């Protein structure tokens, strides 16, 4: 019996999907610090061997040849991950958080990576979505929960549009200051505002979509499991939607215009590109993603409080984008995974875990200054077609 040719070309993709599944599963499942440390030691070794043996080149080629197949493989490994972890509350909570953080980071990728807009207030827009969910969910107004998630994004985009004018007029440090100031303003505002619960925040009831109550454990007909399974699945759906949209923006003329705005504003303007328009679009779309992600996060964690929306969280999100490789939509997923999961796995060494985490991030950026997966050059001609 001969191996079908279609398989011969594509097996590296399967291997890649399997590797992704095994490594994420081990990271989420293992509890002991020494096991995690061992994994962290093995990971670069495996990557090094893969590179030396020509395996990574083969994988890259296989991924390039069969993009749709790759997506299906990775989707299946994500689903397999959820299925195998379905009884572990904490691992699923981490996984869902990773997915939501990756969603915000995709918004940041559009803002930073494509249009070159700095945004140090990502967590504020995330928070706006979260508070929208809390307020709308409380006041029994009959709005379907899925719609509230979208409304969360819209509200974040609308409030973000207050910043458009100052952000458009300023550049560099000055633009960074505006977003930092907005992040701090948002947090102080929440803390002193009694209607929104002040420092204690608000309670959020669980999602209920088409009669499917997310607060109950996962339906037994479908295999049972923690109630986080539903949230993780929804977060996965959100991420897939946002990811596809980001890729569509990147590969279309929208992304091309944004890239040119980032690289040289003056040159773009002289070629007739409306710089302001693309900046506004990138900023709004990014905030919309962050808001949707925040709305889902609020209903998952069951409460919202100003303390979850610090400046340091915004910096964490920026570090996800930088660690992954600016402008590469795929890279935010492993980067978000590292940034969210690593500190949680080193709980035992308490606050030193942040120090250790910082050292790991600095080491990665020391040896790979443009991130884990730098953005590939835009291919304007399809070279893969035969």
């Amino acid at each position, binding site marked *: 019996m001969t191996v079908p040719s279609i398989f011969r070309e594509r097996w590296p993709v399967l291997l890649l999907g399997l590797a992704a599944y095994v490594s994420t599963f081990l990271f989420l499942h293992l509890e002991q610090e020494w096991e995690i440390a061992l994994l962290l030691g093995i990971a670069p070794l495996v990557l090094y061997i893969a590179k030396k043996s020509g395996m990574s080149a083969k994988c890259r080629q296989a991924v390039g040849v069969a993009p749709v197949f790759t997506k299906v493989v990775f989707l299946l490994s994500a689903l397999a991950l959820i299925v195998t972890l379905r009884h572990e509350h904490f691992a699923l909570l981490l996984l869902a958080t990773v997915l939501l953080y990756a969603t915000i980071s995709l918004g940041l990728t559009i803002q930073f990576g494509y249009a070159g807009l700095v945004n140090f207030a990502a967590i504020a827009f995330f928070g706006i979505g979260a508070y929208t969910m809390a307020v709308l969910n409380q006041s029994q107004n009959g709005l379907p929960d899925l719609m509230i998630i979208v409304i969360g994004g819209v509200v974040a985009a609308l409030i973000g549009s207050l910043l458009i004018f100052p952000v458009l007029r300023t*550049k560099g440090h000055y633009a960074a200051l505006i977003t930092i100031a907005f992040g701090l303003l948002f947090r102080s505002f929440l803390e002193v505002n009694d209607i929104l619960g002040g420092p204690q925040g608000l309670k959020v009831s669980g999602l209920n979509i088409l009669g499917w109550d997310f607060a109950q454990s996962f339906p037994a007909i479908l295999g049972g499991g923690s109630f986080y399974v539903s949230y993780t699945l929804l977060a996965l759906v959100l991420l897939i939607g946002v990811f596809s949209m980001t890729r569509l923006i990147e590969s279309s003329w929208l992304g091309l215009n944004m890239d040119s705005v980032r690289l040289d504003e003056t040159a773009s303007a002289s070629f007739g590109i409306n710089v302001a328009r693309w900046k506004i679009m990138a900023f709004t779309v990014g905030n919309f993603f962050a808001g949707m992600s925040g709305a889902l996060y609020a209903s998952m964690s069951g409460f919202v409080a100003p303390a979850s929306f610090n400046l340091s969280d915004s910096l964490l999100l920026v570090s996800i984008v930088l660690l992954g490789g600016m402008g590469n939509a795929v890279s935010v997923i492993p980067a978000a995974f590292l940034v969210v999961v690593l500190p949680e796995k080193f709980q035992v060494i308490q606050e030193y875990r942040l120090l250790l985490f910082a050292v790991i991030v600095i080491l990665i950026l020391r040896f790979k200054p443009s991130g884990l997966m730098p953005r590939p050059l835009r291919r304007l001609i399809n070279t893969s077609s035969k």
Partner: protein
Amino acid sequence: MGIDFKKTVLITFALGSGLAALSGVSTGLYYQEINFGMGLMLGVIGFSAAVLGGLGSVYGAIVGGLIFAALQTIGAIWFSVPAYKDVFAFAVVIMLMAWRPTGLLADRTSERV
């Protein structure tokens, strides 16, 4: 041009950090209380003040610092809840930045392409 790039960067960094440390000492002496987390907010406020005045302008930094402190004080008096002072101060800073995108006292330079 014979300028030692590395040395200049190092000296500027050392000078800046030293000045920040000096103001840290006086802050500690004034409030008679310190904690490790107090720096972030003060750092952001310092950055806001410098940017508000206009980066690269000495007088701008002084003016920016005075304006920021004034805004906080006015905010504390105006609102029945004094905690709104930061909200007020940052909102005004954003508006001022929209009005003068390169700070209040920035030197006029034209961009060369």
